[in-house]
C-alpha cells in the first residue's frame, strides 16, 4: 500500500495540504523529539515563495495523529534534469525552540567571585572575600575594621552581587550563614535587596552582631519583600557609639547563595517556600526554561516526571541555550530525557514531555532488513577522575572506580578525566563519576537497525508502522542477540530514528551518543 502520510504546511495564510509531495524524510532524536522533516515538492519555480518559519506537519492518514514535523528553515528551489523541485527542510520544534534563545541565566549561584565591595564609608573598614583567621573559619564575605582605629558611628560597608541584574532576572531568595567576631548591639549586619541600578532598596534581614550566630542558615525569600529585587547585598554598620576596633572586629557571611525566581508550569512564579532547600531539580529547571524561553512548548499540559537529583548550582552568566543547559543537567540526571512531539490540542503550542527512561523494552522488530553494529572497546573505562574548583578558587579532584570484568581479565586499567561544571560539590562529582563509569563499563550496543515492516509496540500493545517508532525507548531485534550492555539487559536503546517514504524504511540508531542540535542542523544541510 502507499505510505498513508499527509504533509501539511501551516503559516499565516492558514493550513494547506501539500499535494505535490514526491518524498518525505523524517527524523526524531532523543532528547528532542521530532528532529527534522524534509519534503520534496514537484512544483513550478514560478509559484510563490513559502515564507520561512512556516510549520511543516506530517500526519498519519489512518488515525489522524501527527508523526513528524518541524519549523521550516529552508524553502529552497532547484532546477535540473529531474525537474523543478522545491526542497523544504524543517527543524523539529523542540530542537528549534531550544536554540532560539541564548541568554545568560542562573537559577542558583554560589560563586564567591560575584560578590564585590559596593561602597564603604571610610577606608578604615573593608569588605571582601576572605577568612577572619583561626583554623575553623572557612572563607566567606568578610567585613573588617582596621585594628586600633575607631569603628565610628555610621560607618558602613556594602557588598553586592549583581548577577541577576546582568541576566535580567529577579531574585527569588538569598541564603547565608553569618557570624561576627564580637557580640554587641551597636553593630549590625543586614541582608539587603536593591532594584536595578540600585534605584531603591530594602532591608531583608537585620540583626546585631553575635559570635554564636554561625549555626543557623537564613534564607530570605521574595514573597516577603516589598518589591522585586535583582541586586543582593550584605551590609555591616556601626549604629552605636564609636569604639576602637580590635582583631575581633569582623563579620563574616558564609555560603552566600542567590537564587532566581523560578516559573512553574502554569506561568506563575513558584512561592518563596520553594527556595528553602536552595536546590533545584532538572524537571523544575526544564519547566522554567519552557515558560521563560520556549513559549511554543506546551508546558501547562505537559507530561513531567519529577526528577530526584537536587542541583545546588546552576549558573550560566556567559549565555546558554535551553538545549545546552538541559544537556548539562542530563549529564548528571542520566535517567531522564525530554522531547517535543506534535501540535498540542490548543493548536498553537507543541506537546512536550520530560520523563525518565523506561527500562522495559518498548519495541520489538521481528524482521530487520539491515543491521550494523560496530563494537568499539576503547569506550571501556574502569576509573574516572572528576576535577573542579572550589568557590575559593582551589582546584580539587576526586576519583571513582568500578570493577569491569573485561579489563580485570587482562589486568588492564583505563582512566579518563572529566570536568565538573560549576562550583564543586563532592556529592555531585561522585554522582557524575559513577554515571560516567556505568555508561563506560561495557562497549556500547551501538549500530543501526533498519526495517520496512510493522514493529510491535509493547506499551500500546499495537503493531505500529515504521514511521511511528520513537527514539528514547529500548528495542529488541528479532534474530540478533545484543551483548549485555551496561544496563544489564539484552536490549538496544534507540537514540534516533530516520524514515524515508521513498524506501518505506525506518533506520534506528542505537545506543550511540545522542544527536545534538548542531549535528541535526549539520546533517540537514549536508543532505542538500
Amino acid at each position, binding site marked *: *500500500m*502507499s*505510505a*498513508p502520510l*499527509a504533509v*501539511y504546511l*501551516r503559516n499565516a495564510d*492558514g*493550513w494547506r*495540504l501539500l*499535494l505535490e509531495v514526491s518524498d518525505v524524510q523524517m527524523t526524531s532524536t532523543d532528547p528532542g523529539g521530532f528532529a527534522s522533516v524534509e519534503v520534496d515538492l514537484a512544483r513550478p519555480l514560478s509559484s510563490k515563495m513559502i515564507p520561512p518559519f512556516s510549520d511543516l*506537519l506530517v*500526519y*498519519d*492518514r*489512518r*488515525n*489522524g*495523529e*501527527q508523526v513528524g514535523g518541524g519549523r521550516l528553515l529552508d524553502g529552497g528551489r532547484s532546477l535540473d534534469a529531474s525537474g523543478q523541485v522545491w526542497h523544504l527542510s524543517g527543524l523539529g520544534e523542540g530542537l528549534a525552540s531550544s536554540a532560539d534563545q541564548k541568554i545568560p541565566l542562573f537559577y542558583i549561584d554560589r560563586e564567591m567571585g560575584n560578590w564585590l565591595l559596593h561602597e564603604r564609608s571610610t577606608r578604615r573598614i573593608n569588605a571582601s572575600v576572605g577568612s577572619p583567621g583561626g583554623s575553623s573559619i572557612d572563607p566567606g564575605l568578610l567585613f573588617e575594621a582596621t585594628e586600633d582605629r575607631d569603628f565610628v558611628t555610621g560607618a558602613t560597608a556594602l557588598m553586592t552581587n549583581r548577577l541577576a541584574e546582568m541576566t535580567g532576572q529577579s531574585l527569588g531568595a538569598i541564603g547565608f550563614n553569618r557570624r561576627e567576631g564580637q557580640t554587641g548591639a551597636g553593630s549590625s549586619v543586614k541582608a539587603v535587596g536593591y532594584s536595578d541600578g540600585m534605584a531603591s532598596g530594602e532591608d531583608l534581614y537585620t540583626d546585631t552582631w553575635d559570635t554564636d550566630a554561625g549555626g543557623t542558615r537564613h534564607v530570605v525569600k521574595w514573597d516577603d519583600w516589598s518589591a522585586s529585587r535583582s541586586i543582593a547585598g550584605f551590609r555591616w554598620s556601626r549604629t552605636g557609639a564609636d569604639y576602637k576596633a580590635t582583631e575581633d572586629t569582623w563579620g563574616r557571611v558564609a555560603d552566600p547563595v542567590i537564587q532566581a525566581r523560578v516559573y512553574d*508550569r502554569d506561568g506563575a512564579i513558584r512561592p518563596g517556600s520553594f527556595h528553602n532547600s536552595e536546590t533545584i531539580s532538572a524537571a523544575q529547571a526544564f519547566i522554567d526554561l519552557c515558560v521563560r524561553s520556549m513559549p511554543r512548548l506546551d508546558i*501547562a*499540559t505537559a*507530561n*513531567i516526571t*519529577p526528577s530526584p537529583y537536587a542541583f545546588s548550582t546552576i549558573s550560566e552568566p556567559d549565555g546558554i541555550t535551553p538545549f545546552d543547559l538541559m544537556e548539562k543537567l542530563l549529564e548528571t540526571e542520566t535517567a531522564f530525557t525530554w522531547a517535543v512531539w506534535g*501540535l498540542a*490540542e*490548543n*493548536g498553537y503550542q507543541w506537546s512536550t*514531555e520530560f520523563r525518565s527512561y*523506561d527500562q522495559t523494552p518498548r519495541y520489538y522488530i*521481528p*524482521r*530487520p*532488513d*539491515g*543491521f550494523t553494529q560496530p563494537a568499539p572497546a576503547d569506550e571501556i573505562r574502569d576509573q574516572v577522575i572528576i576535577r573542579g574548583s572550589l568557590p575559593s578558587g582551589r582546584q580539587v579532584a576526586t576519583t571513582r572506580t568500578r570493577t569491569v570484568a573485561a579489563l580485570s581479565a587482562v589486568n588492564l586499567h583505563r582512566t579518563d578525566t572529566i570536568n565538573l561544571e560549576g562550583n564543586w560539590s563532592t556529592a555531585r562529582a561522585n554522582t557524575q563519576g559513577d554515571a560516567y563509569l556505568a555508561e563506560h563499563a561495557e562497549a556500547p550496543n551501538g549500530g543501526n537497525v533498519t526495517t*520496512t*515492516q*510493522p514493529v510491535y509496540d509493547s*506499551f*500500546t*500493545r*499495537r*503493531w505500529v508502522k*515504521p514511521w511511528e517508532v520513537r527514539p528514547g525507548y529500548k528495542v529488541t531485534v*528479532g*534474530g540478533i542477540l545484543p551483548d549485555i550492555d551496561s544496563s544489564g539487559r539484552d536490549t538496544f536503546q534507540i537514540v534516533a530514528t530516520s524514515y524515508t*517514504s*521513498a*524506501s*518505506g*524504511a525506518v533506520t534506528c540508531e542505537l545506543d550511540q551518543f545522542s544527536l545534538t542540535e548542531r549535528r541535526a542542523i549539520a546533517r540537514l544541510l549536508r543532505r542538500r
Partner: protein
Amino acid sequence: MSEYSHFEDLFQIVAAPKADATVLLDLNNGDPFRVGKDGWSSPPPNLRRSASTSNLYDGSGDAISVYDDREVSLTLHVLSDTQDECLEAIVALGRQLDRDGVWLLRRPAGATENSYFRLKRSEFTDVLEYNGQGDGFRTVSLTMPAEPFAFGDLETDEVVVQNNPVVGANRQGWVMPAIKGDVSAPLALSMSPASEPGDAVITSAASSPIILASPASGGGTGWTRTTVVDGEEDSMPAFAGGTAAKFTRTSGTAEAELTFEIPTPYQPGDYVAYVRMAVSVADNIRYSFGPVPVLPASTPIFGGDSGWIPLGTVRLGESVDPRFVPEDSAGSVGPWTLTQIVDWWDTSVGDWVIIDSLVLIPVELDNDFLRDGTTLILRDVPPDSGFSIDHRGVVAGAERFNGGAPVVVPGHTNRVGMILNDELTAETTITWSYYPRFLFSRAELT
C-alpha cells in the same frame, strides 16, 4: 463504408467525465477519424514497488507499492476527402493532445458504461503518410500517458446523519452503498452542520465502530460513582444512552479505573477512541486509556466543555503477528484509568467528571490489512458554515485539519463516520460523491 467491425466503439474527447458532457472531438465517427483495427490499447497500470530483502528471513517485505501512470495508445485513420480536411483534423487533434488533463471517453461496442481516461500531455508517435493520395488519407499513432485509473461516471447521493451514537438511522455516520470500481477512490463530501460544531471527525473504515453507551464498571479511591440521567446535569443535558456515569471527587489523591465491556465478538485491531465527557473545572482531570495506562501520555481535558474528546489510537485484542488472523475476541477491554494528579493541579473536593459514551472507530483491523481506515479531524469549524472535502482531500471551510480524507474501497463494507462536537440531537445533511476507479475499464454493475 465501414470495413471496421468496431465502428460502434465510442472514442471521444469530452469536456468532463460525465455522460452528457460536450464532445470536443470524436475519434471514431469517421468524420474524419476512425480508430484502426486493433488500434487501441490501454493496459492497466504497473505497480511501483519498494520491497526489501534480507538474509535474515525468507521472502521480501513490501514496504510501499503504488501505481504508475498507464500508457494508452491509439492508432487513428484520418478518412478525409481532401488534404485540407485531413490536415485540419490533425490540427484539431494536436490542440487536444497539447493540453494536460484531457478526458478521453471510451465505451466498447456492446458495453453499457463509459470509462473516462484522464490524459496527460500526449505525443504523436507517428504520422504515416501515404504519398500520392489526393484524399489526404493518413494514419496517426498516438501515445498518451494517463492517470493510472480509468474513471466511471460520478456516483453521488445525499444522506442525513445524526450526532447521537445510539439513536437514529444514520447514527454518527452511514454505510455507503456498494462501491463501484477495482481500487479505492477518494470520497468528496459537502455538508452544512446545523450549528456551531467546533471540531468534527470524519472517518472511513471497513466496518462499523464499536459504541458503548456508558462505562460498565469501575471505581477507585477518592471518587464516588453515581448514575445520572438525562436532564439532571446542566452541562450535559442529554446522554446518548439516557444515563451516564458521574464521578465526584471526595478526597486526597484520587484515582479511578473504569472498565468498558466491549460487546462480543469484536474485531481485533487498532481503533481510534472518542469519549463524550464533561468535567467540572478546566484542567483538572487527567486520564489515560488502554490496556496499560502508560502510553499514550495522559491528556487533560479543557473543561467546562462537554464534548467528544479524542483518546488516541488503542488496540483491542492481542495478536502476536500482524499476519496472523485470530478468532474474533470476546470480553472486556480496559482498564481506562481516570486519575487526578494532585501535585500539579489545584484540585478540590467536589470536582466531577461525567462519562457518557465511548466510540471506537476501526482504523486497521487484523484480518483486513489491505485496507486501512482514514481519519480526518477538522478543528474549529466556524458555526453555521458549510465545509467540503474534495477528491484530493483538500478541505474548504475549516480553520485547521489534519489526518487523511475519507476513502472508499470496493469489495468491502464502507462506513463513513462523522462525530461533531455539537448537540446530541444535531442532524446534518451530507452530500457525498466519488468517481469509481478502474484498473482496466468500467463494467456495468461494479
